[in-house]
């Protein structure tokens, strides 16, 4: 499982945790997060996240 950091504000998407409040169950892989999903903290697009492997 990997973590992904929003390059603008530092919000972390952890695949293990998912983002249930956005309908992304724990274990949802980054590749399966919809393209129109945006950073909850700053609103930037999924495309602006960077992959940071644990």
């Amino acid at each position, binding site marked *: 499982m990997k973590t992904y950091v929003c*390059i*603008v*504000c*530092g*919000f972390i998407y952890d695949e293990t945790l998912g983002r249930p409040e956005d309908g992304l169950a724990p274990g949802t892989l980054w590749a399966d997060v919809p393209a129109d999903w*945006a950073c*909850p*903290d*700053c*609103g*930037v697009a999924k495309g*602006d996240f960077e992959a940071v492997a644990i």
Partner: protein
Amino acid sequence: MTAIAAPDAGAAPPASGEPVVIVGCGVAGWTVARELRQRDKDRPITLVCADQGHFYAKPMLSNALAQKKAAGHLIQKTAAQQAQTLGAQVLPGTRVVAIDRSARQLILDPAAAGPLAYGQLVLALGADAVRLPTPGLEHAHSVNDIGDYHGFRDALTAAGAGARVAIIGGGLIGSEFANDLAIGGYRVSVVDPAPWLIGNLITQDNGEALKAALAGLGVDCYLGDVATSIEHQPGGSYRLALRSGTTLEADVILSAVGLRPRTELAAQADLAIERGIHVDEFGRTSDPDIFALGDCAAYASAARPDIAGGAARALPYIMPIMTAAKAIAATLAGQPTPIRFGPMAVRVKTPALPLTVSG
């Protein structure tokens, strides 16, 4: 000859061949360009900027050491790469001298091919760092863009590992830099007149907790205090005198005391200014063909339905830029869309005590 009615807020945009010109290549400028291109494949888009125009995220400047990023690695895409991806034209190293509203053109320096015509104009000019009139402040760095950041990192490198850094200003940016520099092994002091850190955004409890967390990293905070003078010492370091009588020794000084929206160009063009460039709920200035967003803008209260009335206000954070850019892009593409800032989160990137401020 038929009288032509003045355009109103919901009027159709100029003919689709007329270019959208965006002044400023920060997050705001590039995001408007990207959002517009997503909605309109054909509209000509030109960006004009005083700097090199490379795409980077300014919030990353205050946690680059923790992320182990050299200054050069903060650039996500060069201006040329962005322009190619978006099918846009970019004119870097170019200042806008004046907006000729009646002719709908910009006077540029260097003048290059002459005035630049626009169908609609977007001002994404940003803000300048406030510089206090403290004697000796010329010895202090302000980090307001990636160019400033390069200079700051060079000064830190020259000062050496473990150098002493004094930060004037314990607001959002000063506190984030304090944390980042401490992680980077520097010995940090912070000076601020407020009683607790980031006083304009966080509660006293959180401010005290943050100070304690930073103290755990060796950061000294001098709150309720002000630097009254900075003197360059014979050995090369600096001595800061504080109003309380304390003196601090530092090798590098950072000033982070606030932002002043860049309104001069808009003021010269007789656009309405209210602290920042005043914009309505569509992001329009007092000229219907000119929009503004980001750190240069003061958004009308209509964009913040949760606030009853009140003066237009600047929102110098990332989320408002994203919200405004999407709405303005939709309006430019022919679908007038009001900006509606919902509840916004400002993330305080202090790893010692991460905070998210809502509101």
